[in-house]
């Protein structure tokens, strides 16, 4: 069959169509990336004794294996005395805790608890010792100076998280996560608590207003598409080079084949 086709030197009439369809499928597939935005929003309120009690029960059922019965820590997990409500809201609210498996660092997973349960856990841990509190919404929902925030972000954050918040590699398999889907509240909490290997940025280093500006900038990046078109993951020249080779030059090479193929 193929030999006889080769002999005739004429392609099947559907060959071009098939090629185009193949190209479209490949292109489409590469760009069809599902996205799921996680919305986290914890209400701040005075911790009631009832909430603390509920949190304690949840803690003992879900966290005590690693962090100890009274959150004083074990060999498997650090003490939580003094880490504050912000830390709990960040770790549990992003699904990092409870940890599923030990690895270079805790991974983001689907959140395991309801907002009330997270609040209760936070209240319980906060009751153990003073620590950073869950920030007020006025600091975490933008409204600051994006330009100032961008400058601070470049100096303090971009070396790990990338200038566009696309994330980056750390040593020994650890990484700084992408920030494109992280809520302002979790960004704020990460800065004040220094989760995993991230350094702590206390209020003397980056003031609460400065943190608000940084969040304002990140929300600006999240809410605005790149003016130039698709961002290719905001990964910089590596993604651009790969795209130029595979899709740019790839398309042109396919076209050269069409140009020089004998017409049917």
């Amino acid at each position: 069959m193929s030999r006889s086709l080769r002999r005739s030197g004429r392609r099947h009439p559907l060959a071009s169509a098939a090629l185009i369809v193949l190209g479209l499928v490949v292109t489409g597939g590469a760009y069809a990336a599902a996205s799921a935005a996680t919305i986290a929003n914890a209400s701040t309120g005075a911790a009631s004794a009832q909430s603390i009690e509920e949190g304690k029960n949840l803690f003992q059922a879900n966290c005590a294996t690693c962090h100890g019965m009274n959150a004083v820590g074990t060999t498997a997990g650090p003490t939580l005395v003094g880490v504050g409500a912000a830390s709990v809201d960040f770790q549990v609210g992003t699904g990092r805790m409870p940890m599923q498996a030990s690895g270079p660092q805790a991974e983001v997973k689907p959140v395991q608890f309801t907002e009330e349960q997270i609040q209760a856990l936070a209240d319980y841990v906060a009751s153990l010792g003073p620590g950073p509190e869950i920030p007020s919404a006025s600091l975490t929902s933008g409204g600051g100076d994006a330009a100032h925030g961008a400058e601070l972000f470049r100096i303090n954050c971009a070396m790990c998280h990338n200038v566009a918040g696309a994330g980056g590699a750390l040593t020994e398999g650890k990484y700084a996560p992408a920030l494109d889907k992280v809520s302002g509240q979790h960004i704020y909490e990460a800065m004040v608590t220094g989760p995993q290997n991230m350094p702590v940025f206390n209020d003397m280093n980056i003031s609460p207003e400065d943190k608000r500006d940084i969040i304002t900038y990140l929300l600006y990046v999240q809410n605005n598409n790149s003016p130039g078109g698709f961002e290719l993951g905001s990964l910089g020249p590596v993604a651009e080079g790969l795209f130029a080779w595979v899709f740019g030059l790839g398309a042109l090479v396919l076209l050269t084949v069409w140009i020089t193929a004998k017409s049917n």
Partner: protein
Amino acid sequence: MNTVVSPPASEKVVPATVTGVGSSTVTAKLSNYIDERTSISAVVKEFGRKIFPDHWSFLLGEIALYSFVVILLSGSFLTFFFQASMAEVVYDGSYAPLKGVAMSVAMDSTLNISFDIRGGLLIRQIHHWAALLFVASIGLHMLRVFFTGAFRKPRELNWFIGFVMFVLAMAEGFTGYSLPDDLLSGNGLAIINGMIKGLPLVGTWISFLLFGGDFPGEQIVGRLYTLHILLLPAILVAMLALHLVFVVVHKHTQFPGAGRTQGNVVGYPILPVYAAKAGGFFFIVFGVIVTMASFFTINPIWNYGPYDPSPVSAGTQPDWYIGFADGALRLIPPGLETYWLDRTWSWNIIIPVVGLVVFLAAVAFYPFFEAWVTGDKREHHILDRPRNTPTRTAIGAAGLTFYGGLWIAASSDIIATHFKMTMEGVIHALQFTVVVGPFIAFWITKRVCLALQKKDREIALHGFETGRIVRLPGGEYIEVHQPLDAYEMWELVSYEAYEPAMLRPNPSGKITVGARARSAVSRFFFEDRILPVSKGELEAAHHDH
């Protein structure tokens, strides 16, 4: 096949313009006017029906040429707006997250091109995408030329000219990448500064002169701009002209095939078919680049912000064509520096720089090396199928592995995060790839080529397998093989093979060191070889049946 020997001998048209008298149409009058002042008709006569062979891979160089034209066009537009100054200005354009930030005039004008001039961002992105494609298509074109042996006599010098253009293209790319004075390119310049400083003897002073004093200084962007839009393009255009003149002088190579010989070139005439295809292809290349620029962001300098020596972004990489150099820097193991003779020897810089220079020199001079090995002084216009030159193909594969390993190393951090590996693991694996990989690639490629040649030989001798089993009267089952026709046979047997050069004394009766070396290298090249099937062999094979 209908063939015409150009220039066409039997055209019946006798244009009125021939005499210049009595030409009546506007076209005729205009042609007459021009020819009387330029002798252009001689050019048309000489080149109008010049034959150009048709093969997709012959258009790779055209992609490079056309993307270069696109770069010149879009770049000219950008020069009307870009200001290559590093003087300080406070940004007050349309991009909110940079408002009020101090930056250089270069960065400010690039942001204005992007956000305040309609279509400016499009032209910027066209320019940058075209630049990436320009270098990429040069690379692919060089690979085609290498693996088909198109660099052989008489084209060795043209290969070298092409190589120089490849280097110039990388230099053009790097100087252009650095012009906006953004954080990414500024860190790129910091790396260049560090590399230069590490060079023995001259490094400190070269850096000092290049940057006009301390790094970063306020000179570098203006200087790179002069290189980028004046000096390098002028040399590049001159080289390009020379390259194309040689293509005309040599006439294009062609793949082996029935009717094609070392003495002819078979294809379509420039007017009209080739002009339509090649001219049309210019617009296609341009169109593809514009499509990329309309839908895909490239080099979003507004994210990077102005250069400042303190910040840096994760994933700081150069554009792809400098990647191999960046990768070479990354793969060096720790601690390679010595203090000797009261001077600092930065082996972690010297080794990659020397390694890359040696690699590039090997690429540049390979044609001369192979010519020396074969001793073949004939002109070669028929291309090799890569399998028919196993050693050359294997050397190419080894070189590609080396280059590819370095290239991938430039994205070691992004590979680590996206494939959930440790960056240390990625780097160790790539160190292995770059050092040992080329040998493995050489061996595998050579074996694959020889195996393919054996398969070709088998088919030439015994025909295609048909899958049809018949029982012979004696009860024996055999598969029927369909013999090849003359054209198919020609494709499989029309290649040139070499054997190791004999070690012979020269006219004065001595065996020189050079001759010994040549003999040894020749043995390395041609010891394993599969010769083309001859008529006698085919006959013998048929008698076996």
